[in-house]
């Protein structure tokens, strides 16, 4: 266990190098966010007959996007998948086969350290932005909601990481994995709820999406926060999310075992 604490420490040191980059990144990300919020404001302003759209008030809608930004800062995989693919392509993976270190755990520690630093850096611009929009920022009334929200975020982070990890391992077979990453990223953006809350979709489409892991990568924790999931639906959702984490974990282990076999075949 102690060796992984070292890994986390190294991860923190390494990502601190990029702190200025992180500030830029988090500030630039606020521009399209503000644009989307402006778009919704214009839509609500033009809708004088009813104060809600698909069950969302303007404040709930704006809060939705702000919470997406926070969950994204906490859980998004940014560099890790490229680094894993590079480790494989450049042959650096060999050293992990010789050391008593588990590559998945090692990578998860680095991911956690990276997210910790990114969130710490992004906290300032994001907090200022939320302060500016505080009029529209709603907080859950029930303290238990915060707990379920936090639990769901942890599972979201695990799910995001494991899916990206498995995709990156495709580098054992493919020369170029960036196209695959961008294709999956597109599905995550629309089916995960980055672009809009999934419950404004026609119910038929939303129901189909519920069978994929994508909503559990973003939409589910955010809708816990906004108060759209409560009671039985909340517990059911948490169990499904946990199931996806387990499936993704087993999948990641499986891809790794297959990949290593392929890798040693090339090297030996």
């Amino acid at each position: 266990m102690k060796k992984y604490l070292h890994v986390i420490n190294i991860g923190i040191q390494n990502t601190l190098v990029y702190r200025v980059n992180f500030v830029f990144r988090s500030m630039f990300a606020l521009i399209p966010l503000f644009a989307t919020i402006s778009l919704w404001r214009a839509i609500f302003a033009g809708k004088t007959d009813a104060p809600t759209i698909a069950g969302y008030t303007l404040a709930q809608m704006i809060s939705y996007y702000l919470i997406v930004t926070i969950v994204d800062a906490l859980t998004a995989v940014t560099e890790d998948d490229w680094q894993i693919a590079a480790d494989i392509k450049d042959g650096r993976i060999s050293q992990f086969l010789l050391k008593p270190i588990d590559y998945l755990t090692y990578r998860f520690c680095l991911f956690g350290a990276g997210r910790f630093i990114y969130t710490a850096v992004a906290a300032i611009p994001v907090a200022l932005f939320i302060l500016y929009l505080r009029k529209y920022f709603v907080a859950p009334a029930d303290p238990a909601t915060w707990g379920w929200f936090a639990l769901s975020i942890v599972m979201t982070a695990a799910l995001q990481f494991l899916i990206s990890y498995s995709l990156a391992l495709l580098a054992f077979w493919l020369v170029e994995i960036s196209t695959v990453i961008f294709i999956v990223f597109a599905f995550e953006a629309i089916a995960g709820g980055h672009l809009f809350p999934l419950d404004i979709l026609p119910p038929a489409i939303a129901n189909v999406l519920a069978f994929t892991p994508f909503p559990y990568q973003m939409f589910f924790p955010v809708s816990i926060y906004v108060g759209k999931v409560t009671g039985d639906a909340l517990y059911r959702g948490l169990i499904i999310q946990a199931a996806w984490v387990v499936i993704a974990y087993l999948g990641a282990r499986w891809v790794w075992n297959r990949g290593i076999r392929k890798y040693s075949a090339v090297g030996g």
Partner: protein
Amino acid sequence: MNLSLNPLRRYLGLYGALWKNSVVREMGFKSNFLLWIVVELLWFSLHVAFIAVIYMHTKQIGDWSKWQVILLIGAAHFIQQIFQALFLSNCIQISEHVRTGKLDFMLLLPVNTRFLVSLRVVDLGGFINATSAIVLMIYSLKQLHYTPSLAQIGGFLGLVVVGVLVHYSLMFTLAATSFFTVRAQGIIWGYWSLFNIARMPDAAFRGFFKSFFTFALPMLLVVNVPAKLLLNKLTSPGDILLLLALAVACAFGSEALWRFSLKRYTSASS
């Protein structure tokens, strides 16, 4: 290579050779080339889907109807893809040339360095992606039951060229800052978020945000003005003149920064 004395012909000949080079390079990775087209098409459909979903819950955004906004998205994609085909990867590589010292070599060649740095590689996939944008724009016009006149189409294409040049000037300016910071990549990455604004209808914005992205970084003009011309939504020629004026300003600004940076350039290895 003909060493014609006419500079225009000489540069056209050079550019032809660079094109040929790019075609050969792309064909070396055929499946990757096709996969990138799939990626672009997917993201393009995603933006359209976003608008389609929003318009399930509203009839208008400001004075923009659904198919007008979809045409706007097509126009944004068209401009972005042409820009990507001609300039994007070249601009991104500038910081790499500075870091590795490859720029020294380019400065010694008997051609204009900005020409070489800006146009070295052509990304052919961009032209193919641009055709999908044309298809969407034509379909949107059909849905709107509106046929623009030849003058409107000509004006639109002219403004598309202006839009591409604005994107190029701004991106080149950002890239030229890599002479001083080396880590310009983060800033260039940030330019992508600006594309996100360019495809939004201007009626959704007001206040400081709108002024900033109209007058300082003309993102809300680059696509909105040509699309409005095509849709006959322009109330006065003022917007066109503003876009042209800002395009000229951006071009001069980028050239000034480029010259200033070159003067201070001391090479990576010395």
